[in-house]
C-alpha cells in the first residue's frame, strides 16, 4: 500500500509499487492531463512535479513518490507561476495538437520557479527534454519570456 498526495489530495495505491507514477495518475486516479508519449523518459509528455522538481512520471515508480507532493497539470493553476505560464500559453496560442503541452507547461513552471528571468539559452537547457512534434518551440520560448515578464 502506497500513500500518494496529488495536487493536495491523498490517494492510496494498492497494486504494484514498481508501477510508474504516470499510470497511477492516469489509469487509477483518472487525471488524464499528464500524457504517455514514449515510456522511457525521452519526450517529457509525462512531466509532473515531485516536491516542486520536474520528473518524468513514466519512469518514476509509485514507491519513489510516496510521501511526496505531486503536482500535475490539473493542479498547475493553483500556483502563481503555473497560472502565469498557462495564461501566456493562451495569450500566444502556443498549442497545436496539444498532446505534449501539459509536459511543456510543467517544465516551464519548474524553470520559472527557480529562474525568474531565463535567457533563451536557459530555456533551451531546461526545455530540451520536452519534445513537441508540432514544433511549437518558437512560441514556447516566447511564452516563457512573456510569463517571466508578467511575474516580474
Amino acid at each position, binding site marked *: 500500500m502506497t500513500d500518494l498526495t496529488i495536487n493536495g489530495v491523498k490517494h492510496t495505491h494498492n497494486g504494484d509499487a514498481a508501477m510508474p507514477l504516470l499510470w497511477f495518475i492516469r489509469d487509477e486516479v483518472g487525471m488524464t492531463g499528464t500524457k504517455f508519449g514514449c*515510456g522511457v523518459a525521452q519526450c517529457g509528455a509525462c512531466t509532473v512535479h515531485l516536491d516542486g522538481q520536474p520528473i518524468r512520471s513514466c519512469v518514476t515508480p509509485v514507491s519513489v513518490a510516496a510521501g511526496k507532493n505531486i503536482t500535475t497539470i490539473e493542479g498547475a493553476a493553483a500556483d502563481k507561476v503555473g497560472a502565469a505560464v498557462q495564461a501566456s500559453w493562451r495569450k500566444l496560442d502556443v498549442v497545436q*495538437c496539444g498532446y505534449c503541452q501539459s509536459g511543456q507547461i510543467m517544465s516551464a513552471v519548474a524553470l520559472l520557479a527557480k529562474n525568474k528571468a531565463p535567457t533563451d539559452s536557459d530555456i533551451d537547457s531546461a526545455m530540451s527534454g520536452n519534445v513537441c512534434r508540432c514544433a511549437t518551440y518558437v512560441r514556447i520560448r516566447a511564452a516563457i519570456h512573456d510569463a517571466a515578464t508578467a511575474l516580474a
Partner: protein
Amino acid sequence: MGILNRITGNDGKASNSTPLINVSRRSFLQGTGGLAIGVCLGPVACSSKDAGTAATVASNIPAFEPNAFIRIGADNSVTVIAKHLEMGQGAFTGLATLAAEELDADWSQVSVEAAPADVTKYKNNLLGGQGTGGSTAMADSHEPMRKAGATARAMLVNAAAAEWKVPAAEITVSKGTIRHAASKKEASFGQMADKAAKQPVPAEVVLKDPKDFTLIGTLTATRKDSAAKTNGTAKFTQDVKLDGMLVAVLAHAPHFGSTIKSFDDSKARAVAGVVDVIRVDAVPGVNRAAVAVLAKNTWVAKQGRDALVVEWEEAEAFKLSSAEIFKQFHELSAKPGLVAGTRGDTAAALKKPAKLIEASYEFPYLAHAAMEPLNCVIHYTGDSCQIWNGEQFQTFDQAAAAATLGLKPEQVSITQLYAGGSFGRRASSKSDFIVEAATLAKAAYAKGVKAPLKMVWTREDDMRGGYYRPAFVHAIKASLDKDGKLVGWQQRIVGQSIAKGTALEPYMVHEGVDHTSVEGASDTRYDIANLQVELHTIDYQLPVLWWRSVGHTHTAYAVETMIDELAHAAGKDPVEFRLALLEKQPRHLGVLELAAAKADWGKPLAPIAGMKRGRGIAVHESFNTFVAEVAEVSIDADGMLKVDRVVCAVDCGLAINPDVIKAQMEGGIGFGLAAILHSEITFDQGKVVQGNFGEYPMLRINEMPVIEVHLVASAERPTGVGEPGVPPIGPAVANAVFAATAKRIRKLPFGDQLSA
C-alpha cells in the same frame, strides 16, 4: 463513393499532369450520435473559456439549428459543428471564424464541437468522402461555413423584424447583439433563438464584402482549443475511460507479413490484473499479426504483453535490409521508367549541352511519430460497434470496421476526439489500426469479453508499425545552354506507391503513375522547355502512407537543390535564376521576392567567429499554396550545423486566421527540419531498427531556429497551410549549407555528413 476528385491547378488550367488534391493527413471528424458516454466523454468540444468538457456541451441546449453546422442555444451559446478533425492545424478555429464572421457573433460566445460521422452532411467535397487531409479544410469549407453563418444571421434578423414589427433591412447585428436603432430594441441571439427556429430558411444569402470583415484576417489569441490544451482537460483517444473498460497492449510481429505460429501466454496470465490474452490475426497487407493482453490498466497490460512468448511464422515475411533496398532503387534509376510528365525533346536537350549536371538523391523511410502513439477505443456488442478515435477518415474507417465485424457501416458509430498529432498517420489508407482494433474486439467478444477495449500502442509499436513515408531515389540530369539557361531536365524517381493496392488507387494512379510519387516534379512550374519526369514503382509488402506534404517531401528537395546547383553552374544568383524561370508564375514570384527581401538576400551575413555561414533559398507550391523560405546556417569546425534563422513567405489566398497560418509555417519548418537533419527508418533483414526517440530523434527546442513568417496579401480563394510549410525547408537549408561549405548533401538525413 468517389474519394478524391481530380481538380485543376490554382490557375484553373489543367497543367500537363493535373495537380491533384491529395487525400493526406489533416484532420477529421467525428462521430456519432452516440449516446452520452460516461462522465468525461461527450463529443470533443471547446469554448474560449473552459473548453473540452461535457459541461460545455450540456449547457448548449439547442434552440435553433438552422443547418448542420450551427447551433444556437437559449443560453446564448453558439456552437459551430466542425466537419474537419482538429489535430493541431487549427481547423476548429478556422471553421468557427468563418461561421462567426457571417453570423456577426461575439467570438467569446462561440465554441466548437466535432461533427458526427455522417457523410450525407459532412462530406469533404475535395476528398469525396468524410475525412480530413490534403490541406483541404479551409479550401473545402470556407464558402459553406460562411453561408451557414449568414443563413443563421438572416433567420435571427427576420425573427427580430417580425417580433419588433420593423423592416428587416433596418436591423443590424454586431458582436452577438441584434439591434433596431430607431426603436432602440435589442436582443441577444439566445433571446431570439426559438423565434428564429420558426423562420423559413432563406434560399439565398449574401456574403459580406471582405472590407467588412471583423474576424477573418484579424483575430489573435484565438484558438478555440487553447484553454483545454493548457489545463489538461482536452480529451484525446488515450484519455477515454469507459465503465468496465479493459486496456489492450499487443505483441506485434517483428516483421511485416509474418503470421502467428504459436504462443505461450502462461507467464502473461500470471501477471496480477491480466484478464485475458487474445490472438489478433492480421489481414495480409493491412496490419501486423499480434497477440493482445487485456488488463485493468495500461501498465498491467504492458507487463503481461512483455511476458508473452510468441513464435512467428516468417516464411512470407518482408526480410530486406536498407542497403539492399537502396541498391535496387539506384539500379532502377539508371533505366527509363514510366513517363509521368513530358514536354519538348528532353533527350535532344541533354545530348550535347554546354553544361550537364547529374546528381542522385536518397530519401529514407520516415515514421510520422506523432506524440500520441496510435490507439483506438472500441466497444463491439455483436450487432453494433462504437469507436472513439482521433478520426481522420470516417468514411473509410467506418466501412473497414464494419467489414471486419460483419456489420453494416451504419452499425458502426465513430466519436471523434482530438488527435495528438497525425501528420497523415491517422488517415490510414487501409484503416490498419481500426482493422486491428475491430479484429481484436471481435475475437475478444467471441471469447466472452463484452467490455469496451482501449487498444494502446507503445511508442515502439507506433514507430515499428509501418505506414511510412516511402523511401525514394531520384536521379536528375539537367543541361544549361551557353548562356546559362536551363534547357533540359530529366528526372527519374524510384519508390513505393502510396495509393497502389488501396481503395484510392483508381483515383490517384493513372497509367501506372501514382501522382503522389511525382507531384512537385512532373508538374513543376519552372519554365523548362524540355522536361521529362519518369517513375519506377517498386512493390514491397511494407506499408507506406502520406506523411505531411506527401510527395513534396522529397520532390521539393531534389528539384530545389538541383535548381540551386544549376544556378551556381550558370554563374547566376539563385534568386535571379529562379525569377527568370518563373516569369509566368505570379504567385511563385510573389513569395520568392517577399522572402528574399525580408531576409536581406544579397547582403552578406554577419560573421560569427569560428563558424562558416551561409544562406539558401527554396520556393515550392503544394496543395495550391505557395511558400518560399530562406535559411541562414552556421557550421562549426567539427561540422556541427545550426539553423539560425528562417524567413518564410506564404501565399495561401485569403488569410482566414493569419496567426494560425504563421503557426503552421513555424511548425512545418520545425517538422521538416527534424526529417532532414535526423530522421530515418532503416531495416535489418526486415526488422525496423528504430523503436523510440533515442534512435529516431525529434527536433528539440535548442535546434529550433528563429522564424519570421510573412503573408502575401491576397483575395484568392483560401487554400491549406497544414502541409505547405514543410517542403521548402529541406532544400533551403541544404542550399545554405552549400553556400557555407561548398558541400552538396544529396542523401537524407544529414546526420553527421558535414563532420566527415
